């Protein structure tokens, strides 16, 4: 089956919207992801999210060492322009991106201003299978009491993200995609708890 640029993208958007509205929720977009099997450079789910959001009016930045091929694919399909991590509206971290590179880009990326907090970068991060034990809880708007974090997050990642989202309304919104066709979001409003089982190490 061919990917339908109207109906498949609409389905992906609705799932993405519910994920952004309910942080920690893991949505299944496998049906559409299976149709995007022509994509080899990144997860089909990543490609679908990119197709849903990017066009010639926005810019993007790709991290990692396979950046050239992914960049070309995205530019060919969406007509979005590639730019630096500092200026990009969307930052894509393909699987295998080193944490050092990811965190550096996260420190540098746009977080919006107090007047225009929407002028911030949204991240699309490829991850291992979503839904495993993460040891972290999420809370904030969109979450009834607490939700399980969709993926294990390192201490450095959480602290860099928290620093970036420190002064609400500025901040960054994260979209996670996995290789099986699942997505999940952590917007700037979500509080990520400290890791539970780890002992206090000074």
């Amino acid at each position: 089956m061919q990917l339908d640029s109207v109906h498949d993208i609409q389905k992906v958007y609705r799932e993405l919207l519910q994920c952004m509205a309910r942080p920690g929720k893991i949505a299944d977009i496998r049906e559409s992801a299976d149709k995007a099997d022509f994509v080899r450079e990144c997860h089909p789910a990543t490609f679908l999210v990119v197709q849903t959001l990017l066009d010639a009016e926005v810019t993007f930045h790709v991290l990692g060492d396979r950046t050239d091929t992914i960049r070309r694919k995205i530019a060919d399909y969406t007509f979005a322009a590639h730019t630096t991590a500092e200026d990009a509206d969307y930052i894509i971290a393909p699987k295998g991106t080193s944490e050092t590179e990811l965190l550096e880009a996260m420190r540098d990326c746009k977080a919006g201003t107090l007047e225009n907090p929407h002028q911030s970068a949204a991240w699309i991060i490829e991850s291992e299978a979503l839904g495993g034990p993460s040891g972290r809880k999420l809370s904030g708007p969109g979450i009834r009491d607490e939700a399980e974090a969709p993926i294990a997050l390192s201490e450095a990642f959480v602290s860099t993200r928290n620093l970036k989202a420190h002064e609400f309304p500025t901040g960054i919104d994260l979209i996670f995609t996995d290789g099986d066709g699942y997505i999940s979001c952590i917007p700037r409003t979500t509080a990520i708890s400290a890791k539970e089982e780890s002992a206090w190490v000074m």
Partner: protein
Amino acid sequence: MRAEPQFAFLDEGSKKEIRRATLKAVAIPGYQVPFASREMPMARGWGTGGLQLTCSLVGKEDVLKVIDQGADESVNAVSIKKLVQATTGIPVTERTEEATLIQSRHRIPEIPMTKDQILVLQVPMPEPLRKYEKKESITKRLHAESEYSGAWLMLFEQIMKYGRTTTGADHPVLVNGRYVMAPSPIPRFDNQKMDHSEALILLGAGREKKIYAVPPYTEIRSLAFEDHPFKGEDFSGKCCRFCGATGVFLDELYIEETGVTEYQCNDTSHCADRLERQGEKEVHHATV
């Protein structure tokens, strides 16, 4: 030859832009995200913002309900339903519980909405501070600095003049403890329904080119003072003249011939639903 209309009227590029703005709006609850409001086959100010949101959301599996000030059958609701149906072919309903997408002008349905539903509200005036500040550049700065003394002063002056706040509808709310937001001209009675709502609420202002949102389980507090607590419209001791419902938002009607004031449900589908069930009961009783 007649060309097929584009699914959900809008071209995909426009939908993409609205979708990007909507995602930001959800991530920043209560903040008005600017968007390039498209020309719709309807005058601005008649729900074009809500309609654009609906068109960006709708898919083949959706069931749509449109309400105009509580009524499913009034002209604004009917024309919006017709446009969406003509361009998507999806079914429409009047039953709140059957709908997956609910576009509404100035009311939130009486039946609590679920997590599988999205409420889209039409907004004429998204800026709650506009009454005392004309310049957008300044209201933007006021929001940035969380400087809301003007909004409080407005309510304070009403209390000084009239002994109570006089906001009929559109009583400002504080979203997640940060942004003061216009909840669209819903009656004060409906403000509490936004607080920790199960359903995602999206608000669209077509003429003013703004999209904003209230995610589920988000704190919504109506602005009020400690010694002047917020009060919704009070219908105690009154009930609907058709279905007898209490604890719902009622319309007041003055019947000229008899000189009596009567009340009836504002949410027509809720009223019809109750009448239907009462009818079933009567029929059941009659046959037993």
